């Protein structure tokens, strides 16, 4: 018995020495097979158990189990040590090239700056309780002019060069039995103002509080004019609406769009559908209203410190009457402005034509 125990102790001592010096997974596995495998040394020693007495067997078994546990623990410990060495080696290796560009599977596209401006403007007015509406771009001249107090022989029609639609291309109207009463010329709307009329007609009675972003068309094409551009129209009709409300609303809008320190200035002007009418300037978004920057005259506002951006006024009583509203019981204000100009001022874009060229190198900047 003492002999077997001695052999087990010797086995343990040998395993201790060889496992500690093992230098790899492979060597460890070999040692495990050598000591603990089916044909290993431990099994060989235990085969001698047959000669022992029943009293001796548990004692030898106990030693054998202790030796097996010890060897297994040493093997596990050695494996952990080797893993750590491997991990340390990996962590100590050279870093990857973190400067390679990110993978360009599908880079994000870009919102057109005009849409972006329109969305931002609409959001400001939505916060002020305005409903965003739209109207037709191919319009009857009654909505575009007459209803807005621009009568057929009014010189104000010259203020806007109008595109007219060739009547014969509008389809055979007589072919059908019903024809609505609308007559007059058909044109591309020259401003978003006809939506004022349509909105008031749709509402039927005050209050009306709408804005309308959209495309408008004028027959003018050069460096500073595009035959198609975008406007936003605003209209607020209710009881007791005053010019002071108009001033406050546009001042709030200007601060919301151009920044909290933006100032506004109203100057008398003329649009046939408002009275009193005004042109509205905002303090220059580029020079902050100083008129100069770094000692040089500001090119954006031409040194004046102000930018003309809006037309506005109190809705003309004739316009209210044209939609069946009673000007003695309600008043309103209206305003309109060009979106391109807003976007140009905001982004520092100096050429109107860029908006419609749609060069991807331009679009990708927004």
């Amino acid at each position, binding site marked *: 018995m003492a002999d077997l125990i001695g052999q087990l102790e010797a086995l343990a001592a040998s395993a201790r020495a060889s496992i500690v010096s093992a230098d790899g997974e492979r060597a460890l596995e070999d040692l495990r097979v050598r000591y603990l495998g089916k044909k290993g040394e431990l099994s060989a020693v235990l085969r001698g158990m047959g000669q022992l007495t029943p009293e001796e067997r548990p004692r030898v078994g106990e030693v054998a189990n202790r030796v097996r546990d010890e060897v297994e623990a040493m093997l596990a410990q050695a494996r952990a040590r080797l893993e750590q060495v491997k991990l340390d080696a990996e962590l100590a290796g050279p870093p990857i090239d973190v400067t390679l560009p990110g993978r360009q599977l599908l880079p994000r596209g870009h919102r057109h700056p005009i849409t972006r401006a329109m969305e931002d403007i609409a959001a400001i007015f939505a916060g002020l309780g305005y409903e*965003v509406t739209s*109207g037709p771009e*191919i319009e009857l001249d009654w909505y575009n002019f007459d209803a807005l107090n621009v009568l057929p022989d009014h010189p104000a029609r010259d203020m806007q060069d109008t595109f007219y639609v060739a009547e014969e291309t509008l389809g055979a109207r007589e072919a059908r039995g019903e024809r*609505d009463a609308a007559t007059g010329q058909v044109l591309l709307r020259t401003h978003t103002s006809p939506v004022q009329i349509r909105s008031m007609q749709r509402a039927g009675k005050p209050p009306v509080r709408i804005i309308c972003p959209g495309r408008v068309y004028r027959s003018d094409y050069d460096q500073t004019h595009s035959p198609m551009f975008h406007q936003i129209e605003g209209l607020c009709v209710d009881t007791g609406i*005053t010019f*002071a409300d108009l001033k406050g609303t546009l001042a709030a809008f200007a601060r919301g769009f151009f920044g909290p320190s933006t100032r506004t200035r109203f100057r008398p002007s003329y649009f046939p559908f408002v009275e*009193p009418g005004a042109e509205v300037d905002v303090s220059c978004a580029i020079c902050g209203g100083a008129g100069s920057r770094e000692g040089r005259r500001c090119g954006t506002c031409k040194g004046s410190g102000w930018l003309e951006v809006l037309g506005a006024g109190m809705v003309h009583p004739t316009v209210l009457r044209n939609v069946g509203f009673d000007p003695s019981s309600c008043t309103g204000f209206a305003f309109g402005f060009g979106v391109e100009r807003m976007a140009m001022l905001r982004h520092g874009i100096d050429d109107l034509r860029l908006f419609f060229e749609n060069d991807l190198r331009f679009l990708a900047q927004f």
Partner: protein
Amino acid sequence: MRISCKWLSDYVDAPAAEELARLLTGVGLEVEAVERLGAELTGVVAARVVASEKHPNAEKLSVTRIDAGGPDPLQIVCGAKNYQVGDVVPLATIGTVLPGGMRIERAKLRGVESFGMLCSAKELGIDADASGLLILPRDAKPGTPVADVLGLADVVLEVNVTPNRPDALSHVGIAREVAALLGKPLRLPQPKLDERGAPASDAVRVRIEAPDRCARYAARVVEGVRIGPSPGWLARRLEACGVRSISNVVDVTNFVLLELGHPLHAFDLDRVAGHEIVVRTARPGERMTTLDGKERALDPEDLLIADRDRGSALAGVMGGGDSEISAGTTRVLIESAWFSPAGIRRTSRRHQLRSEASFRFERGADPGAVIPALNRCAELLAELAGGAVRPGIVDANPRPFTPGKVRLAWTRPAEVLGAPVELATTRRILGGLGFVEASADEQGATFEVPSWRVDIAHEEDLIEEICRTQGYDAIPERLPAASVEPPAPAPDRVALTRVRDALEAAGFSETVTFSFVSPADVEAVEPGARPIALANPISADLAVMRTSLVGSLLRSVAHDRRQGLDSARVYEIASVYRPRTDGARNPPADERRRICGVLAGRRSPVSWGVSGDPVDFYDAKASVEAVLAAIGVGDSRVEIDRATTWLHPRSAGAVLLADGTRVGALGEIHPRTAAAFSLPRGVFAFELEVGPLVSAMELVAKYRPVPRLPALLRDLAVVVSDRVRAADVLAAVRTEPLVEDVTLFDVYTGPPIPAGKKNLAMAISYRAADRTLTDAEADAAHARILERLRTDPAVAAELRA
């Protein structure tokens, strides 16, 4: 309107130009520019020749000593001979840049130093005379700017007069406004006439046949006129206002136009047949040659100033050649009339003929100015052309002017403006502007409108006068009371914002292109389409309203390709336009919003670590799916499309909603369409209608329970004919109730799959809602699917070994 400050000062004591500009802009007469006349002669001063001797080294030159107002005389070398010592001449001092661009510098001429240059009229840009120095009046003080000596110095304001203010289209008009604003006296011209000879009515008769069109026609006759050039002061005043000096008679009528704003016309009375003026409409077929030399076919609505025989002027627009003032004219008939605006405007537009006269008449001339302007003109003709004014005015006045009356309720200004307005302020402002309080009571007053304010007809017009005169700064800023319930965002706007976000996430950039295109572009996209056309397009390229967005985006992609950008994903959301088919007219056209996208080039940009495969049909389809998913359009499918003209017939899909509603199409651009836009093959596009999508969308997602029980996964590979449609195979799989989901993860053709066949590999997940499935159940379901795929005639699959 160009306003000369010098001229203006005849009528009112106005402040300096900058202050005046601010003042006028502040009341709605926007000054767009301030121009300094004579500024180009800055540095040129009057100088007296003190001494002159021959140049030591040059035959033709002299060396002069010049008093230019400084402490010491200057030495100047000069080539001219036409002066004497003591003469005052223009000296361009060192540093001056002459109108011709020549810069004066200190120079040595043949060894003699010269400190400036003595100038001819031509060198100063004021005359063609280059024969010698310009000799100035001897009393001009040396050192005085030449522009002042010559009376050239002036400041001109460029005033943008809005169409409602024709009364401001003259110097007196502006002066009246300034006088009212500053409370200063207005000095109107007071014509003094020395009338001689037989009464004017002996020389001419006036008859108005169309009193609705011509309310008044007044004429004077001036005889013994000598046509000649105008004096310098008159020519300079006209030129300051941008009007060319022609002859004394014509210049006088233009002067009165710019002074009082009232258009006049001068006829050669000896060429007025029958010495009779008839104001009548044109006769059918009548023709007339206007002053610009054009023979015009007249419309029966055109108003003419005619003599006994024929028309001699298009009334209020332009004179005729027959009765034009010429060098031999001695008897002048001056016309001063009032024509109704609408008729003038129609004639002016009909003949595409605009003049200073028509511009004013169509805005509304001042009926009160008819006689004063006539008298002023006669006075000046007598003075400047040596004429004698015949006694009396031949005045046809069938519709005497009565001033308009407008009532103002005292409380109304404050109600509209939102700021208190004192009664005294109202009265002071309106009174200053020429409104006369005809009657007043506790509540308000009725004001008589001055004859020149043709724009005033309503109470609001008076409020505007108060408001603009007071200045808008006097009105506080306030926000309207929130009497309106904040509206819910319109669903279509929410939807389109989501669509934009989704498309941008899928790599598309938004474009904004013109709504009008060339007819050829429409034809290339939709052959045979009949687009709505413009009557007056700006160019043939922008002549018709587009019926599809595809062409515009193809143009955009072609532009980018020319810039070297071969890969592009672009989209646009905009309207397309078609004639209405229901005969209705309000709105006049059928406008529908669409979402369009175009894909070209590579699927991913050239970059390391990604494949450079070209885009294909399924990229376009994924984009459509992204759009639909973004707005919660759940059930949709794509079927073979044979209707879309711009799609390649073999690569064309129609996008259908669950109920079969067609919402658009996608696929490869037809080779013919691509070629028309100079694009290669392999460009893909989709176009969707917003309307039906908005009807079908669900912006708020509905919750479905998340499965808690495990699913069992089985792969399945079947070989089918390559004509079998994936949708049929997947539909067959889904007939099995235990199938929760099926993913087609591979489509393969080629060896070892026999020709004409393809292998479809699918991953199927099985799940029951109420229990954990056993393997046996899943296997059984799998077997049923296989059997189904084998027997379904649309699939006829073989299980792949």
